[in-house]
């Protein structure tokens, strides 16, 4: 009976609306928050500081937009270069690219930012440093660090996209007489880009959210401004809400543009364009116009000349042969130069390591691994474990908890019933539209306000990480479920299995197997993300490193390198394991030479 009614869309809509109204009423009028909401701080001039915080927050947003745009450009260009380099035949280039990508993918952005800001200028001579500091050093450090970090992820997306092209297509293209450049331009790139756009889009979104970390080097971006409002007025709830709304809107704008690009590339020939596609088309009108006027005639002329040449038959003259030789020599020279630069870099790196104060590392390593264990004081959980162990514990808690939430929300998201789908959708988009640091603040401010109670910051951090990860996991689950051919569901249902039986016996076993590699990737991300909970003062690896750095002050390089290695090693092992699984689960995958 209930099921019959629940299948009707209007019933679903009504239930959702009623639930929405009830919760609005409950949270809005009945529930006593025990918190003094002061929304006017967001749009009036504060008497004490003579500042309009709303304007300050908007200034922060503008800076966030700037960092996002520039770092995206850095990310995509460097990412393309790295992705192509990883497919190169020239081994040293290939290895270097692999090293760079693996390093940035397996080290927290926070640690990278600290490195670029505090350690990198020390390596420069005095004059260079002065020159560097004349610029907006904070802004550019943050932008480059975020851009390079993103490029590592984009490189992987691009490489995977290039490798996803069926081998047969390439063979056909080569055997029909196309040259490598032609194959690249006409077959590989168009096909690859169609594959790449959706994951690339989510990298752009991640990039935007990563810019929130710029605040740790003193860049007054959106998160920084929200923090500032909180610090000056203690109205964290209002400030975080404002930042959250702005981040969400920005995410939606980016998603809109990406949807448009995606739709356009898929060249919808049915004549009905969606709104995002129309928007992109509108943007492209001037470009098309310029293209028609300037490049079109040129291209036509070139094409005609090429046709004529082709009809004239194959003739090679000596100058062409000479040019070809010159080209080979040039390639050789650049390879040699590359090797030289690489050797120089390795040498200076080795020299740097040689000059390290290793005794400091040896002495402080136990502290970094376990912090105060077993000297627990007061509010310490887990017998006073801290540092690396606490990072690990938080990550494991978040992994287990988020798995179950993610599975349920993912199932809800792929359900046809709106009562489940829409709340799941809202949850996923709310969380995914915000940077983790904002989610951390949310949990931190919201739990006391909602439950009129407090919890240990370690738990607060673990809850935030769990909620954040669950949203991403839910999307992986949805993808996995959607990859199962619909025929299987139909067969299962028609053979009399219920929804839960179908899910448990048919869909999930297969989908979970497919999901393992991305899930492991997510776990790497969680482990790295534990570095962010340092903002709450949780004594995990990053906080401990900071505390040690604070006390010793003379060994920043050594301490931060050790921290980076401590993050890097487990992440690398996990990612290697993910690769291994991927290969094991799809044995037909063959790497093709491009």
């Amino acid at each position, binding site marked *: 009976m*209930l099921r019959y009614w629940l299948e009707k869309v209007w019933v679903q809509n009504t239930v959702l609306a009623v*639930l929405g109204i009830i919760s609005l009423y409950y949270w809005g009028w009945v*529930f*006593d928050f*025990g918190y003094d909401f002061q929304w006017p701080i967001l749009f009036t001039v504060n008497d*004490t*500081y003579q500042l309009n915080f709303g304007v300050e927050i908007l200034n922060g947003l503008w800076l966030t937009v700037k960092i996002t745009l520039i770092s995206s450009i850095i990310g995509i260009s460097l990412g393309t270069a790295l992705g192509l380099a990883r497919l190169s035949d020239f081994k040293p280039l290939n290895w270097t690219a692999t090293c760079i990508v693996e390093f940035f993918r397996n080290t927290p952005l926070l640690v990278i930012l600290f490195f670029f800001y*505090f350690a990198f*200028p*020390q390596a420069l001579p005095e004059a260079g*440093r*002065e020159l560097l*500091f004349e610029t907006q*050093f*904070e802004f550019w450090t943050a932008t480059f660090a975020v851009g390079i970090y993103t490029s590592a992820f984009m490189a992987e997306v691009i490489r995977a996209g290039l490798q996803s092209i069926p081998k047969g297509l390439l063979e056909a293209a080569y055997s029909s007489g196309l040259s490598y450049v032609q194959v690249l331009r006409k077959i590989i790139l168009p096909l690859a880009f169609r594959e790449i756009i959706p994951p690339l889009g989510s990298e752009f979104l991640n990039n935007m959210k990563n810019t929130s970390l710029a*605040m*740790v*080097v*003193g860049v*007054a971006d959106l998160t*920084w401004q929200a*923090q*500032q409002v*909180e*610090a*000056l*007025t*203690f109205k*964290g709830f209002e400030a975080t809400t404002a930042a959250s709304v702005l981040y969400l809107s920005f995410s939606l704008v980016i998603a809109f543009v990406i949807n448009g690009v995606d739709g356009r590339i898929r060249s919808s020939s049915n004549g009905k364009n969606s709104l995002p596609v129309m928007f992109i088309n509108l943007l492209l009108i001037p470009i098309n116009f310029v293209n028609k006027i300037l490049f079109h005639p040129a291209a036509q002329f070139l094409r005609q000349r090429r046709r004529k040449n082709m009809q004239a038959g194959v003739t090679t003259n000596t100058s062409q042969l000479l040019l070809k030789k010159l080209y080979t020599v040039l390639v050789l020279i650049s390879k040699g130069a590359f090797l030289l630069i690489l050797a120089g870099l390795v040498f200076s790196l080795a020299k740097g390591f040689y000059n390290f104060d290793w005794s400091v590392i040896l002495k402080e390593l136990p*502290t970094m691994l376990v*912090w*105060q264990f077993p*000297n627990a*004081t*007061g*509010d310490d959980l887990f017998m006073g474990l801290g540092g690396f162990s606490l990072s690990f514990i938080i990550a494991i808690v978040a992994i287990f908890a988020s798995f179950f939430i993610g599975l349920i929300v993912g199932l809800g998201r792929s359900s046809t019933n709106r*009562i489940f789908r829409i709340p799941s959708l809202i949850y996923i988009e709310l969380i995914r539209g915000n940077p983790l640091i904002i989610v951390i603040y949310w949990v*931190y*401010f919201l739990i*006391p306000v*909602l*439950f*009129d*109670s*407090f919890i240990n*910051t370690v738990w607060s951090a673990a809850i935030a990480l769990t909620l954040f990860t669950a949203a991403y996991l839910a999307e992986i689950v949805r993808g996995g479920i959607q990859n199962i051919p619909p025929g299987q569901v139909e067969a299962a249902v028609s053979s009399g299995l219920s929804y839960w039986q179908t899910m448990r016996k048919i869909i999930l076993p297969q989908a979970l197997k497919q999901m393992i590699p991305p899930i492991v990737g997510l776990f790497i991300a969680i482990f790295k993300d534990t570095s962010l909970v340092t*903002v*709450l*003062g949780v*004594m995990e690896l990053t906080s401990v490193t*900071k*505390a040690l*750095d*604070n*006390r010793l*002050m*003379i060994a*920043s390089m050594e301490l931060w390198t050790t921290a980076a290695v401590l993050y890097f090693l487990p992440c690398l092992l996990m990612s290697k394991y993910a690769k291994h699984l991927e290969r094991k689960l799809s044995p037909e995958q063959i790497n093709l030479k491009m």
Partner: protein
Amino acid sequence: MRISRVLALTLALVMMASVAFAGPSYDRIMKDKKIRIGIMTDSIPGAFFNDKGEWVGFDYDVATELSKRLGVDIERVKVNNKTRIAFIQQGRIDASVANMTHTREREKSIDFSITYFFDGQKVLAKTGKYQSLADMKDKKIATMQGTTSEINVKRALKAMGVANPAAHVISFQKESECFQALQMGRVAGWSTDATILLGYASKTPGKFELVGEFLSDEPYGIGLPQNDSNLRNAVNASLQDMWRDGTYMTIYNKWYGADTPFAMPMSGSIELWP
């Protein structure tokens, strides 16, 4: 059917969790015989972890002494400049001894004890390079985000005729980051409470010095929950007793005495009620 039951259950749980438990902190402290005090972890020599991994410092000792005078056990909670006030508001801690300047803006959110420490804001710079803040008004100054020092520096720069003071101030999340920025020459000066600056300067003797006049007075108070006068009175009385019987000076000399790296002459006296 099942769904409605789940929903009802969830709602009931949410409501149960929101049952208020907070009451006057003083009564609870006396009933449980335990006071939760927020202390910093990386403010040298206020409260920090020494090279043996022990939590020590001036604030640490004051907090310990305070709990002793109140006749209750102490639970030490780690706080930073971001969490110390929020924790009091949320009831996570009963008091925060965390080098916190008593300001009118903060008074709107929490209460303060009488001043238990007298500090003032100064600027730290490379030795011999600058005479005062005015000399570095074209350069950058480091401060910590969300502190009174940040606002004071901006105000001081504005008074010196700097058009856009915000552009000359870089605010970091931690003291150590400010110091590192100063060390690498990114900023000309770092401004915060003199005791903190002294603590850092003592790490590399002779390289850095305090310059110029005090930019402000920084009277430190113990942060307490709003509207709990029993607790505030008890804390104030304990502080005064500490001062009267000399315990305060013993603790002070242990951290700021003449033969310590952070030597600073006592510059005030605790307000004593007859």
